[in-house]
């Protein structure tokens, strides 16, 4: 039994970079993302017995993160505290390469989408889950997933194209 838990621990350790990336897609800043990963990892370890052998460990933790994030945003709304915008001014100055700027544009565009679209895009486009797996992780019907995905994509496309049009005018 101890051995099994050690195994899961090791597997979660291997997943940490991806959990952080998923955290970044669903929260709007790095600090929140890591807080969320930490919370999810602690919860996962406490409830290890709820994970079903043979199912995807990453999906299971993603769903814990999703639930934790929804709880968090609700309680923040109650306290009406806003974290996301605080660091925004500092991000610009440290971007150098075209690569970084491009990544930043994507992250900013994502930040404008509603939670439900960010979750769908994060799981399918960023984490590479199949529609069925993503729908199960989010506990929604597959049709709901695909329509959120489609709407999210459309919105992102619009935001990013508008950004490109602006930068063309500048140069």
């Amino acid at each position, binding site marked *: 039994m101890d051995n099994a838990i050690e195994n899961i*621990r090791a597997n*979660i*350790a291997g997943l*940490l*970079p*991806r959990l*952080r*990336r998923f955290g*970044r*897609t669903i929260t709007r*800043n*790095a*600090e929140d993302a*890591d807080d969320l*990963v*930490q919370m999810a*990892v*602690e919860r996962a*370890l406490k409830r290890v017995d709820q994970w079903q052998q043979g199912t995807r460990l990453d999906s299971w933790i993603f769903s814990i993160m999703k639930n934790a994030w929804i709880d968090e945003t609700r309680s923040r709304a109650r306290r009406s505290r806003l974290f996301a915008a605080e*660091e925004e001014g*500092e*991000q610009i*100055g*440290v*971007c*150098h*390469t*075209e*690569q*970084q700027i*491009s*990544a*930043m*544009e*994507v*992250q900013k565009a*994502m930040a404008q989408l509603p939670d439900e679209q960010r979750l769908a*895009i*994060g799981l*399918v*486009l*960023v984490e*590479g*889950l*199949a*529609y069925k797996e993503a729908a199960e992780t989010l506990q929604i019907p597959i049709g709901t997933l*695909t*329509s959120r*995905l*489609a709407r999210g*994509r459309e919105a*992102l*496309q619009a935001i*990013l194209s508008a950004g490109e049009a602006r930068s063309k005018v500048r140069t």
Partner: protein
Amino acid sequence: MTFSDEILMAYSDGELDAQSRAAVEAAMTADPDIARRVARHLALAARVRSGFDPVLREAVPHRLKEALGDASDPASARAGTAAPGDIAIARAAKRARSKGVWAWPQWSVVAASLVIGVMAGRLIESGQSQLPIAMDGSGVVARGALERALSTHLAGRLAGDAAVRIGTTFVSKSGDYCRTFVLSNEVAGLGCRTGGDWRLPVMARLPTGPESSGPYRRAAGEMPPAVMRAVEERIAGHALDAREEAAALQKGWQKE
């Protein structure tokens, strides 16, 4: 035949069965507009992924490893991160780092080998980098590492960025050079040299799920039907042999 955007989206996400996939690819070859819409989905997916991939290469904060009850993780030593013995120190360090260095604490380490997501896959390249494709008014053009590979790689040769593999080179009926390519083992396409750019009339997803594809499992030369048909439609004569290909590359892909 018309396809809803949801079907084209599902195609670009690798969600269709073989039969529907073939139907979409047939439509892509018949209708440039459908090909463009698919390319748009693939491009957006690649762009979104590349926007978050840098997170994978950041050092995992110590507190997350601690949350796993694993403070002596050898990976943390390998990544060269300090392992403060005291949580308060770790927190303070984290606070200090997060000021002004938001998402890129490791950037200097990463800069030597920037890794970007490409066409729902990954492409490794060095130096200045861009996304591999861009849209303009009339379609999709190659940029960054893909543009470089189309311009400078010979078929089958895996140069610096092995993520782009060049297949066949031929002269099209309009006299332009065209080359097939595979990106990250996930997306195949055709690039044709027109007006100093490599235009991409077709791109198609290779039929593998995101989880099932090993890095170089796919046999060379295996192209989706949509790409094959695009080649057949355009090719004038035969594919270039290695000598002709090298000569065309030397001349900078100028028309005959």
